[in-house]
């Protein structure tokens, strides 16, 4: 059984690491993590994807064993266990506004859109923020709380490093991680579908 140690990482990094490990086809995964939010978020995420979760208190935290529904422990067949619909969609957010028109309306609609995603069952795999889109992931944004909640449900939030640099927000990234054009281009080409906002 593969294992993963995410102790000491703050949310949503534990969920993102677990998601990657599960998607890499690990049959059964043992995750060492901190009690509190990481433990709750990873449990909720794994159960939401149909895994059974066994918990065990260990020194310095908790160990969660994630086993795919209907698989025997150790059988590396999880790629077919995961709901296909929740994988492979990439959302490209190239602006802090949604639609053409008055700027304040566009900003309001974009905030509204991102917060509304929290009510949906099917979420994108990744959200890529480009150009003024990075204003949504950096300090002062109104959607940081929503992006953190999305991260805890396994959505990878990635912001373009060049764009953060341009807006002098490099040190002010407050949701998700920084990425580069290579990853952005690769994610888009490998995605099952790309939703461009």
């Amino acid at each position, binding site marked *: 059984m593969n294992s993963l140690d995410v102790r000491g990482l703050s949310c949503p990094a534990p969920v993102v690491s677990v998601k990657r490990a599960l998607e890499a086809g690990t049959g059964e995964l043992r995750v060492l993590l901190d009690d509190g939010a990481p433990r709750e978020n990873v449990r909720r995420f794994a159960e939401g994807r149909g895994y059974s979760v066994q918990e065990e208190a260990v020194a310095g935290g908790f160990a969660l064993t994630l086993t795919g529904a209907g698989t025997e422990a150790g059988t590396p067949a999880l790629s077919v266990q995961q709901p296909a619909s929740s994988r492979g969609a990439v959302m490209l957010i190239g602006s802090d506004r949604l639609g053409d028109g008055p700027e*304040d*309306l566009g900003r*309001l609609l974009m*905030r*509204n859109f991102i*917060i*509304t995603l*929290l*009510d949906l069952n099917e979420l994108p795999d990744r959200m890529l923020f480009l150009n003024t889109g990075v204003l949504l992931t950096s300090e002062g944004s*109104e959607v940081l*709380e*929503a992006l953190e*909640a999305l991260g805890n449900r396994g959505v990878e939030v990635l912001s373009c490093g060049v764009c953060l640099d341009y807006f002098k927000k490099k040190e002010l990234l407050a949701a998700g991680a920084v990425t580069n054009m290579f990853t952005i281009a690769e994610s888009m080409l490998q995605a099952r579908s790309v939703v461009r906002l």
Partner: protein
Amino acid sequence: MVRDGDYVAIFNSVHRVMEAERLLKEKRLEVRLIPAPRALAADCGLAIRYSESARSEVEGTLAQAGLMPRVLYRKNGDDFQKIEGEL
């Protein structure tokens, strides 16, 4: 996005809710413009969320500016309890 005990003020026009947000933010009050929770099915679809601690100042500011919400709810557990307003 709405925690237990939070207030959700629903407005009847997008212009009013944007004006209310601008005014409250100007006063540095802890408010957030959010999509109206689906359970409340408002026509306009927008609401302002605030906590108990900000309540009196938020509502005082809105009343003074003539920007009272159409209806006000408070989140209690899984439900929204109507505090004020029509319907």
